[in-house]
């Protein structure tokens, strides 16, 4: 319901105006604080940034017909905050320009990923190369890495650009994890994924980047759980990991010293507890409304714009702003869980939840780490911490969530033919829906649940309330299989699934061993469905989604 309301009533243009006003206000403060005279280059950077936001917004709403901007608004807001903080701390404009470049790159990655993720066939083709590239990158990292703040997680190219491969690998990790869905029941595929995951986590351990290793592990748990629902295996993995963690604490003094500081920062106020104690002191010094941008003292502390940026937010922007920002991270996961219910396939649901879970987990590690509620692990705050790798990764992560939202590709839906064999409608669903029921609940539950937005295409095809529409659009041969189809579709997450079956059957390479095959056979009538029928269905979807937009 909330989402429907957003679609109908929410004026995203107005929201963009608010965001722009906020950014104008804060960037002006930052520019004025940056030096004695106004640095025109900074003005240009901020104008360019705000212009970039509006270009993106105009293009996607007018040309691509998007009407949901929750994630982009948050990402723009956060990126703007990071840009403003960098501008307020570093004299001159070079750092700010670098940060703007990072945001541009991040946005580019976001758009490219949205395009790639739209095409599930491409996703499937890219799966292995991406996995290989990720491992290669980590291996390269291990070979070339320089020690940086006790961790080896940086590669410096020509002494100009230093990148943190582990940030990029985060994207690959989710991509591969969610895309390896084809052989759900096969322990072999799980083993492959396990090997991939543990190679990633293991390399991070070798790099002594324990915070990121922990993030990967948490993401792995989300993906593994959402894929299999196998609580026993996951419990086993967690126990193994806990044992591993104990070993590390035992053998690695740097990690152990972090734990000795944990909850004792005031006793180590000028040594190991320095960063946390400064964050605490200056966070409360800022009060609820902050001391003003550029007025803080935390900025002089090492890593203030990266790891400790939450403290800067509290001190200069105020605890209220900091809390609102942090609540936005929680909203991202909330949003991901909600869109996961209406995704076209499980790939999107898993990718969205894993990405959002990763963001919130990393946020938690960061803000609770610097405020001494959890041990300090030195991870960045997504979007807001300064740094290109982190920024690009953050934008890439929300691309996973965005692509899961069925509203993301409204006008392009005709060309979306997620007909790759690896993306049948969810295999497990297919099997259970043979009886037209799931968990004993009647199949009509979805449409009767007011909290559940019904995808427009589903209303057209499956909703009993619109029989006339169906008669218009659906070719005559479809109703033959209608009773079973209707059962499957009403229960299904997406109507797109109904179309996938035709090519599934036409492909000789399709695996026959999967549980889905059973259902496919029952719906074999569809394999004879002419292409025109599919086309007309797609058109009906288009018209219905068009109807949705401007209301």
């Amino acid at each position, binding site marked *: 319901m909330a989402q429907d309301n957003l679609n109908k009533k929410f004026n995203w243009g107005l929201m963009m105006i608010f965001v722009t006003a906020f950014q104008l206000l804060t960037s002006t403060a930052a520019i004025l604080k940056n030096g004695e005279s106004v640095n025109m280059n900074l003005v240009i950077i901020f104008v360019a940034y705000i212009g970039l936001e509006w270009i993106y917004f105009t293009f996607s709403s007018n040309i691509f017909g998007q009407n949901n901007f929750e994630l982009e608004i948050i990402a723009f807001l956060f990126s703007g905050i990071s840009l403003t903080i960098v501008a307020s701390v570093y004299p001159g404009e070079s750092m700010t320009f670098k940060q703007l470049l990072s945001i541009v790159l991040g946005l580019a990655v976001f758009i490219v990923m949205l395009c790639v993720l739209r095409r599930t066939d491409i996703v499937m083709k890219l799966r292995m190369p991406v996995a290989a590239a990720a491992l290669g990158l980590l291996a390269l990292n291990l070979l070339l890495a320089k020690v940086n703040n006790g961790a080896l997680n940086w590669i410096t190219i020509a002494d100009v650009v230093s990148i943190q491969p582990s940030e990029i690998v985060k994207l690959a990790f989710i991509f591969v994890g969610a895309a390896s869905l084809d052989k759900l029941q096969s322990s072999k595929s799980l083993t492959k994924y396990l090997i991939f995951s543990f190679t990633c986590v293991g390399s991070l351990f070798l790099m002594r980047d324990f915070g990121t290793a922990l993030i990967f592990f948490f993401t792995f748990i989300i993906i593994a759980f959402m894929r299999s629902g196998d609580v026993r295996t996951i419990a086993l993995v967690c126990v193994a990991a806990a044992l591993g963690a104990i070993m590390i604490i035992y053998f690695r003094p740097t990690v152990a010293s972090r734990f000795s500081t944990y909850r004792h920062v005031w006793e180590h106020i000028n040594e190991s507890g320095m960063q946390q104690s400064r964050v605490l002191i200056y966070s409360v010094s800022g009060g609820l*409304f902050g*001391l003003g941008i550029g007025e803080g*003292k935390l900025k002089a502390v090492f890593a203030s714009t990266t790891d400790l940026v939450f403290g800067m937010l509290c001190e200069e922007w105020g605890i209220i702003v900091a809390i609102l920002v942090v609540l936005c991270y929680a909203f991202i996961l909330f949003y991901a869980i909600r869109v996961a219910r209406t995704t076209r396939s499980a790939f999107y649901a898993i990718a969205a939840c894993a990405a959002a879970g990763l963001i919130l987990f990393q946020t938690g590690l960061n*803000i609770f780490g610097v405020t001494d509620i959890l041990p300090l692990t030195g991870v960045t705050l997504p979007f807001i911490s300064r740094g290109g790798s982190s920024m690009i990764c953050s934008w890439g992560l929300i691309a996973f969530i965005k692509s899961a939202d069925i509203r993301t590709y409204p006008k392009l839906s005709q060309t979306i033919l997620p007909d790759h064999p690896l993306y049948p409608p969810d295999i497990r669903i297919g099997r259970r829906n043979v009886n037209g029921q799931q968990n004993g609940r009647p199949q009509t539950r979805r449409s009767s649940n007011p909290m559940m937005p019904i995808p427009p295409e589903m209303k057209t095809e499956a909703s009993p309330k619109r029989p006339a529409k169906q008669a218009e659009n659906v070719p005559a041969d479809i109703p033959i299989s209608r009773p079973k189809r209707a059962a499957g579709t009403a229960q299904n997450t997406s109507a797109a699934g109904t179309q996938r079956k035709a090519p599934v059957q036409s492909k000789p390479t399709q695996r026959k061993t999967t549980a889905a095959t059973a259902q496919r056979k029952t719906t074999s009538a569809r394999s004879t469905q002419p292409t025109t029928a599919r086309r007309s269905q797609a058109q009906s979807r288009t018209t219905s989604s068009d109807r949705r937009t401007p209301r």
Partner: protein
Amino acid sequence: MNNTTKRAYVLYVFIVAFLVGLGFMLASFYMHGNEWTAKKVNRHIYTNGQLTNAGAIYDRNGTALVYSKDGKRIYNESSAIRKATLHAVGDKSSFISTGVQYVYSSQLSGYDFVNGVYNLKKYNKGNDINLTLDAEICKTAYNAMNGRKGTIGVYNYKTGEIVCMVSTPTYDPENKPAKMDSDSKYEGVYMNRFLSGQYTPGSTFKIITAISALENIPDIQSRTFNCTGKYHAADGDVICNGVHGKVNFEEALNNSCNSAFAEIAIELGKDKLTKTAEELGFNVKGKIGQINLTKSTFDVSKAAEVDLGWAGIGQYTTLVNPCRMLTLMGAIANGGTAIKPYFIRSIVSPTGVETAIGTAEQSDDVRIEASIANKVNKMMRSNVVNHYGESTFPNLKMCGKTGTAQIDNGESHSWFVGFSQNPETPYAVVCVVENSGSGLSAAGPVVNKVMQKVCK
């Protein structure tokens, strides 16, 4: 509904856990904000460990004892006032742990949860603090101490306002001596002896023994004692400062007769004497505002009979805190009702709102019956009239008791405790001059100089 998406609901648990963490964080911000902002590494308030930005501290007449200007902490222009009020105000590096600058640093910084230290930024000052001290009187007291170690405190026993609080040795915070830490002349320089000192009370403790006797021995005022220069206890002698012969109770106090008071103490016994001492503020933790006082201790649980005799005349293991002694003087002077001493009058916000901190408040720690207080009051008056001489404290209607506290190594500490009976000048005084011999010769003149200034 699909299993995969249903499993996503587990992530709601994670969101809840995250929000709980956030709530915990905010709660700790709220609860510890005061304490955290006051840390010496907070560069809004301190620079290189030195307090730089904070509100001003004023004496009772509005003289600025210390204030901040352009990121610098500036003390009063008079070197003598700087030295005399150093322990009350606090040093730059907060080594003086009872200094207002240290204890009230979060108030001086103007910190509150809603605004943080914003006021410090906006008005370039935090809250100001008004003290009840009089800088000129403190200066007189500092000069009267004449380089000797010790302390002097004067307070109004009707209102509780401390007008004079000086602790020596002291130093000039604007001109800190280079080799202070290794110089024995500056031993214990960071301690405010008035608030944190513990001294052997010597004969001033006879007041407590006398109060206990008045409470517990009905005919004490008609009793006579025979002083032969020492008192024979079962297991040793208590030596007297003279041979006083036959004295009554009042004359025994006038002459500070050890024999008589050792006899009284032993007659009272451990329990009664301890009970009285504890009613008079011994073995009890005390505070002035947020500043902790050092306890006065009286413990005769393991004392032999002769030790109890010694304890009755203020030797043995007994230690008193000058501030607690001053409160006792106030109770005696004020007809049994002890008013708590305080020296922090109010906090003034940058916008001019004044919040009272100290007010006349009855002390629960020191309790004397009015009739007994009045009897002791008269006896202490007779000490001055009959023994020390009215000319020692002209025009003050002074009551008092001297003490010469023998210490293990070095010369005795000289004590004077007392008060003015004049209703116009209701001031009580405590003075300790270390290693300076008899009470009257060393502490007496210091007290007179200060009290003349106070009561002028």
